[in-house]
């Protein structure tokens, strides 16, 4: 049983690293072989948008460490993802990874494997989107997020002062190992509003009637009962969630790949019309 920890903070021995290490130690207590990667020690380039991966059904062809990290994720049985909260959400390296997992298309080998998310943060009330990007990354890969925690700590290594927080991370790591051993990757965390990602961030659509979990792409109705807002998602809507393997396959197959033919069909016109932009405000190649 292998458990991998990913740390998405630049700070060495920072709160994220310490909490991820606690979780890994918890998994180790349960018999896991553990390993940790500090993502910022690796070269992960931005996606260049040329998409040979999609149009050729290949791996990402950028020359950096992304495929190495993906292989590590695919080899593991469970994942600990740690990212500090930076300006209300995750650090940029998480978004960088999200854009690059595009190259995996619907062929994730991590599908169904359990994961946990740990987010240290400093200021109460400055964390509204803390779990959105970690959820997007893990759900795109088809992983089952079994628990997640926001952990209050600010200065570098400060979290070592808080035994409760360390114990929480360790307990999550143990639970992750248990999920791997038992095959029960059900969610054990605090319940949220979305039945899939368990977050509380909802969008109110322009019709002012429909609410949506933007991450999972599922829609529901909000009603007011005794002064409390109740959000209901119908089972058939839950089934339509964005990150099912079928929907990821459909997205690449019907929304992305046919754009190549459209590009070809409209090429003569775009080629001519683009010219007026070529010299205007031209920037030098760096």
């Amino acid at each position, binding site marked *: 049983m292998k458990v991998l920890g990913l740390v998405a903070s630049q700070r060495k021995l920072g709160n994220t690293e310490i909490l991820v290490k606690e979780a890994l130690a918890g998994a180790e207590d349960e018999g896991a072989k553990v390993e940790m990667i500090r993502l910022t020690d690796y070269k992960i380039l931005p996606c260049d948008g040329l998409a040979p991966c999609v149009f050729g059904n290949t791996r990402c062809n950028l020359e950096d460490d992304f495929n190495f990290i993906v292989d590590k994720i695919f080899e593991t049985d469970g994942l600990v993802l740690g990212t500090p909260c930076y300006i209300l959400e995750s650090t940029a390296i998480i978004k960088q990874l999200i854009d690059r997992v595009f190259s995996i298309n619907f062929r994730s080998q991590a599908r169904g494997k359990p994961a946990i998310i740990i987010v240290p943060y400093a200021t109460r009330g400055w964390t509204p989107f803390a779990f959105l990007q970690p959820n997007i990354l893990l759900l795109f890969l088809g992983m089952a997020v079994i628990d997640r925690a926001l952990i209050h700590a600010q200065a570098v290594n400060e979290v070592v002062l808080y035994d409760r927080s360390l114990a929480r991370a360790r307990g999550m790591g143990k639970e992750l190992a248990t999920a791997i051993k038992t095959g029960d990757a059900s969610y054990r965390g605090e319940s949220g509003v979305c039945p899939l990602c368990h977050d509380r961030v909802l969008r109110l659509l322009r019709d002012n009637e429909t609410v949506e979990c933007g991450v999972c792409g599922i829609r529901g109705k909000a009603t007011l009962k005794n002064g409390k807002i109740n959000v209901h998602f119908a089972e058939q809507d839950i089934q339509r969630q964005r990150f099912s393997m079928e929907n990821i396959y459909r997205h690449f*197959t019907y929304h992305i790949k046919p754009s190549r033919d459209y590009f070809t069909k409209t090429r003569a016109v775009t080629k001519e019309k683009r010219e007026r932009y070529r010299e205007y405000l031209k920037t030098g190649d760096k």
Partner: protein
Amino acid sequence: MLKIVGKLRWYPGDASVEIRQQDLDKIAQDYGVSISIDEVKGRHFVTDREMVYEETMNGSLEEITQTVVTLVADTEHGFRSCVRQLIDKYKAPRTPYSTWGSDERAKKIIAELTDEWDGWV
């Protein structure tokens, strides 16, 4: 007056409810337009680890699995009303090439209406 001809392409899973000819007939009647439906079945399939997938990157966008709704109207008013109704019922088709095959006037009207309300935002 020239007829307006629009095509809307929904891909598997995109329409909020199944697009059925009898429902389209009703909409056509309500707005005095003609609507037809073409269920296209894809032609290129590949097998990968015992699963069969449609491969859409090399073919033409007209040939992939999709539901194409063709709308022909004598008046802009009828065309607009009908497109609005279709979007309300099914949500707007999702991709920039979803109106491929429409005439230029239809493309402009559909773009304008879907920017106002597409059922997605």
